[in-house]
């Protein structure tokens, strides 16, 4: 009897599965219509599941209480061998319930696989283009790349992810999208299978080499939505993260405009020295459009790609979305960035000897200082509201 109470208490504890308010990856806090549809499908079934479990557990306790052997006599209970009607009933009843669930499942499934026509107008290099919001998502160990083809994906061959056609905008760690628009994703991988997942905006979709998987996202409100690679992809799987930054159409247009231009060339001494270091040490893998954007022949890595750093400072995270580039007050988090440049594998496990992940470059402290000075000239800060939203308390 004592142990009963323990069980009841425990199940009560487990029932209190309220999700914490600060859970940025919460799957039950939808922030867009797609995630909302999924949530609407799941919520009633969770309640149904609680009810069914309560009935089974209740029946068990009732049986326990009612039919336990109290050693009054040696009489056998009535020997019942079965009851066909009853058994047919409890075969049919769950079948009917599950059939109903199936119908709703199929409706939501169909809806999530629709592709909506929602072209928007963008100013690109001074002219107006009609853009069906679509982003090419490319996974590789252990970061995400986002490519924007502003003239549409017709005729863009995505079949070889290691050699993709040049895009108008190439960024990493953070995908920027306009709010209120369904964003079509074409997702692929440059090495192993990864999974792209922004719980607040939709479920997940694996990306696989040699395949282009369609998926989509939509956010109702401006904000930063967190994600995590969810298909085991090797050593630093847990450190392969990403964020979606949703903006108003106006902010999105400004972001596009900014990304399409090259940042001003550095002028100060340290930054110029840093650029020299960058050209010698970093351009084997990384791309900065104004330096090796035209001539990049691919990175010296298994995935054939490293993050494009042209507008490095316009993102708030780096190294697979795991480090904050800025302090909460908007200043550069120099310590972390220097540590990363000093010895990347120490900060994030990688397999540099197998050309997977950033190696320790063996830079001197002076070179690191110069490199930081150069990197800070690459683009401008996205503003405090986004910096603050990237902080995880």
């Amino acid at each position: 009897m004592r142990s009963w109470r323990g069980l009841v208490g425990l199940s009560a504890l487990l029932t209190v599965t309220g999700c914490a308010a600060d859970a940025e990856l919460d799957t039950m806090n939808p922030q867009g219509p797609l995630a909302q549809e999924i949530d609407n499908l799941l919520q009633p079934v969770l309640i149904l599941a609680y009810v069914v479990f309560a009935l089974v557990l209740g029946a068990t306790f009732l049986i326990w209480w009612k039919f336990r052997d109290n050693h009054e006599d040696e009489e056998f209970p009535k020997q019942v061998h079965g009851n066909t009607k009853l058994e047919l009933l409890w075969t049919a009843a769950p079948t009917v319930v599950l059939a109903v669930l199936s119908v709703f499942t199929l409706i939501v499934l169909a809806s999530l696989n629709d592709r909506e026509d929602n072209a928007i107008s963008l100013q690109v290099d001074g002219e107006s283009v009609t853009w069906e919001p679509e982003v090419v998502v490319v996974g590789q160990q252990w970061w995400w790349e986002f490519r924007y083809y502003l003239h549409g994906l017709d005729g863009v061959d995505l079949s070889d992810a290691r050699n993709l056609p040049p895009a108008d905008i190439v960024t990493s760690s953070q995908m920027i999208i306009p709010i209120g628009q369904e964003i079509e994703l074409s997702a692929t991988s440059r090495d192993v299978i990864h999974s792209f997942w922004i719980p607040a905006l939709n479920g997940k979709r694996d990306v696989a080499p040699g395949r282009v998987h369609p998926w989509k996202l939509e956010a109702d409100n401006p904000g930063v939505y967190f994600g995590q690679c969810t298909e085991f992809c090797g050593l630093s799987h847990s450190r392969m993260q990403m964020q979606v930054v949703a903006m108003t159409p106006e902010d999105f247009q400004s972001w596009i405009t900014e990304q399409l231009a090259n940042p001003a060339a550095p002028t100060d001494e340290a930054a110029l020295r840093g650029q020299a270091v960058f050209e010698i040490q970093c351009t084997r893998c990384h791309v900065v459009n104004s330096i090796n954007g035209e001539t990049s022949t691919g990175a010296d890595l298994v995935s054939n790609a490293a993050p494009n750093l042209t507008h490095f400072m316009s993102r708030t995270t780096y190294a697979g979305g795991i480090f904050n580039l800025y302090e909460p007050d908007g200043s550069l988090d120099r310590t972390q960035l220097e540590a990363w440049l000093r010895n990347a594998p120490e900060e994030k496990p990688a397999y540099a000897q197998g050309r997977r992940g950033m190696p320790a470059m063996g830079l001197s402290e002076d070179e690191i200082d110069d490199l930081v000075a150069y990197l800070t000239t690459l683009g401008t800060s996205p503003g405090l509201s986004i910096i603050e939203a990237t902080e995880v308390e």
Partner: protein
Amino acid sequence: MTDTAVETTRPIGVYTRPKGGGGWRDWVTTVDHKKIGILYGATALVFFVVGGCEALLIRLQLATPNGTILGADTYNQVFTMHGVTMIFLAAMPLAAAFGNYLIPLQIGARDVAFPRLNALSFWVFLAGAIFLNLSWVLGGAPDGGWFGYAPNSGIIYSPSVGMDFYAIGLQITGIASLVSAINLTVTILNMRAPGMTLFKMPVFTWMMLVVQLLLVFAMPVIAVALFLLIFSRQFGANFFNTEMGADPLLWQHLFWIFGHPEVYILILPSFGIISEVIPTFSRKPIFGYEFMVFSGIAIGFMGWGVWAHHMFASGIGPLSVAAFSLSTMFIAVPTGVKILNWLATMWGGKIKFTAAMLFAVGVISMFTIGGLSGVTHAMSPADTQQTDTYYVVAHFHYVIFGGIIFGLFSGFYFWWPKVFGHMLSEKLGKINFWVMLVGFNMTFGPMHTLGLQGMSRRIDTYSPGFGFELWNMVASIGSFIIATSVLIFVINVIVSAVKAKGQPHCGPDPWDARSLEWMTPNPTPEHNFDEVPVVESLDEFWHRKYGTDEEGRIVRVATAEEVCQDGSATGVHLPSPSYWPLVFSAGLPLVGLGLIFSLWLTIPGGIMMVGSLFAWVFEPVDDPDGPHGHHDDSEETATEEAPVV
């Protein structure tokens, strides 16, 4: 007839069969299904503890954010080996232990159809298990997950020898499963006692028959997949090389076409066990025997049509997703039928809540949770939020731990006296149950919440601030409570054995049981039945003890002692022991090591295998000097001969 010829033709040299002689020699040469069952059980329990220790390491690492107990690389190896160990080296061989020991007894046979093959199954399994774990000291354990998705399992992305050990090791244990499955299928179909029609077989035997048939068809699929992986890694084949036009989803399909039936391979033995335990302690026959059997068969068939529900997020296309969503929904039906039939069996009974019964009731409620979360996975849009999160980890641990481990423990408590002739302590057993129940729910209950909060699977660490801290800590504490419960079980085993030393064996029928295995004394004598019983009804043993009076009341017509055989038969012809299954099995890991490290090693391995097969064929059917040798002039009580193949 040919008796004299056999007696005078002494076999030569190496081909003599082992003489027995007691001690360890008996165990390494045995072909007795009971000893093999015990070997399976003991080995599997050791690996259960090994896999459990790996789980504790995982929980220590994840107890707090930014855990530093295991590095990322070690963590990946530990979680891979936890899965591999628990599924292939603990749960499957534990089911094999029960199957080996009980199936011949439940169908009234003297042994399995192919006793030497049975020994081979065990030794090959052990060889594979040791081989897999050798990877820890020979260059690193597998690090690509138990599911080994391509291309991450390929040589570029997993350059250590770990995945080679995985591919070859699972190939070896797969041979064991396949051989054993064929053996037990033939045994069940061909060796039932007179009168035991298929629909008089105990539910456990029925479920094991379904399992064996699943194994027969599922193991070749994983074997093919593993060969593709071995060839890719060892010989540069391009089965998963996308640059050469391969599709990485090929591996997933092959793996899960095996992998999903595998789930039923794991769960059905447990369903069988509790279908024996619940009627016994409810003092009622199983409710709806035919429904139970047919729902098990239905699961066995439908289990082949649901594999892609592991791949809802993999990009297989909406039509496939829709089809597998539907099939997955409806496989819940036969499982639901079983749950309700067990409850109905208990309803109106006079239930003794022994330790075995507690574990069985635990299966009903805990498996229900796993089944219900399974329905939320079947809704594929919802699954895209849940898959590869801790919600899935919670789901399948409620199925595998709540459904399978609880069932196996129920079986331990129930059949311990059958196997060892003494009871396990009921008091410790009940403590065992409650501690395990609390620990289990504390560990895996919160994982539902963690998954819905967005915590991914297979991450070696997590940052503070995502709301994962509390429930991870609770789960980690819970895991040590589970460990405590297993420790209580081990203590129970030891204490009970010590107490039983020098005491007479427990009576023949400690639980007032129902099926044929209890007609033999405890522990079961080497020859099983003095006389093979003629079966007239389901629950034959019970029906020999009880009848009905004129008013239809149940009355005892015979005591258990009268019904049970006394095990005194002598001169029963039994299959002779053999060295060759062990020798053959010992060759396999050598070939495996040879493939990985130096092809020269395959030569001794190959010689051992081929040589032992020759010896196997040529060894005499019989050893005149053996303890159960050819029948002599002494009085015979049984004439049925066990097969000697």
